[in-house]
């Protein structure tokens, strides 16, 4: 068991103490302790069924839990959920979806630009407007590709001008290249907006590259700290079993 000594100082945005989540008698998260500071990019890793998405839901107060989840006061938190299958037949345009947030078109265009939608046209603003209207805003939400939908969801989250973004990475539906660009886009948002981020990731390479802190979860806390030190071989074996060495090895190539 790793013990952490957390003091709620000025720049701590989130403090989690002795968090337990149970579904019936099934313990999904056991005695979890960690904290997030302003400007942190915390990656949460772990195998399937480790409780990562459940952790997000507990942090957002969407499910019952015991223990303490303490957010700093007056914090705007946005959430991009993982499970998000949109029916192709659903008659809802991207513009209508984004307008649920009661923001004007200018604001919507601004966030779409910042998540890299229509990036190839962004220097000519008239052209950009026409392009985005035709190819994104007036399309059905269900017609977007996996990667585009992901960006629109992030744009949706950014419309609230959040201080913290919780991003639950989809396990499938986005090609490898697309995933990489989404993370470099998030990284840019992080530095431009001073956005604190909690990312659930399935790809350890992403974690090494983009996160300054990592939390390994397998129902309980396995490791916590900077990726280079926390993700040692014993932590990786506890998380993924013997194949884990492979991930660490691959990282050395970068």
């Amino acid at each position, binding site marked *: 068991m790793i013990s952490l000594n957390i003091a709620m100082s000025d720049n701590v945005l989130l403090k989690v103490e002795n968090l337990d989540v149970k579904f019936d008698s099934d313990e999904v998260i056991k005695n979890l302790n960690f904290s997030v500071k302003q400007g942190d990019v915390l990656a949460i890793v772990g195998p399937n069924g480790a409780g990562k998405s459940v952790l997000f839901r507990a942090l957002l107060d969407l499910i019952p839990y015991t223990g303490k989840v303490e957010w700093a006061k007056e914090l705007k938190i946005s959430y991009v959920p993982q*499970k998000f299958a949109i029916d192709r*037949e659903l008659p809802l345009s991207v*513009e209508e979806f984004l307008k649920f947030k009661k923001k004007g078109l200018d604001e919507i265009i601004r966030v779409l630009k910042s998540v890299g939608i229509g990036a190839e046209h962004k220097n000519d603003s008239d052209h950009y407007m026409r392009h985005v209207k035709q190819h994104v805003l007036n399309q059905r939400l269900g017609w977007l590709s996996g990667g585009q939908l992901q960006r629109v969801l992030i744009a949706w989250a950014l419309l609230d001008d959040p201080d913290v973004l919780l991003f639950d990475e989809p396990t499938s539906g986005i090609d490898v290249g697309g995933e990489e660009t989404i993370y470099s886009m998030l990284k840019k948002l992080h530095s431009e907006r001073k956005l604190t981020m909690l990312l659930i990731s399935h790809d350890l390479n992403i974690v090494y590259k983009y996160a300054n802190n990592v939390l390994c979860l397998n129902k309980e806390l396995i490791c916590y700290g900077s990726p280079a030190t926390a993700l040692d071989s014993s932590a990786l074996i506890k998380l993924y079993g013997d194949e884990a060495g492979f991930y660490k090895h691959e990282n050395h190539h970068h």
Partner: protein
Amino acid sequence: MDNSLLLQLITGSIIGLGAGYVGSFMVLRRMSLVGDALSHVALPGIAIALLFNFNPFFGAFATLLIAIFGIWLVEKKTELPSETLVGIFFTLSLAIGLLLTPEPELLEALFGDITQITKLDLVIVLVAVTTIFLVMRKISDNLMLGIISKELAQALKIPINKINFIFLFLVAVVVALGLKIAGTLLMGSLVIIPAAAAKNASVNLSQYTRLAVLFGAMSATAGLLLAHYLDITPGPTVVLTAGVFLGTLIFKK
């Protein structure tokens, strides 16, 4: 055109507007089957109203309320669609209704009879449908969010259960109103068909709801006119007219 026909057409088309609007969200919530069978529940209510001599609308509305409360509970407690509940409970209540309804009124209860409509009915319909439009406008964004992703809606602290209940309440209202036109067996289809037809032809939500509302009103008007001039039963005629709009399938996006 005589006054009675004019009254039928006005009342019928207003009900069609309401049915189209509410129906558009029923289809999105995958409640087509529920909508279709829900109207059966009205029959025992009508029967009781006839036996105790009060307005069948209120009898029907009372039993529909019980049914939507049941649907609401099932939806809240489980992720399962309310299919089984519909399959068992709704057909059972149809059976009970068939036994309870006095023979002379049975045909009217089953297939509706808008020729018997009064000015008071028009007033009830007008007030109810106006309320439906006002409430739907207020809840439709949140209702849609709940349809897209329950998690997303919850994260925004949208009271999903409350919104769902309000919506199902409107479903009960519109089905009860439509019993005069289409009867307990067919009213469900008047709610579902215009919306299903509109869905084929629209890309976005406002287009979709507008078309559903339009198709609803047009089915009612055209169906009632046809029934009047061909001297056939209005209920099935209205539903069949609505079916014509499924021709939008060729414009499927």
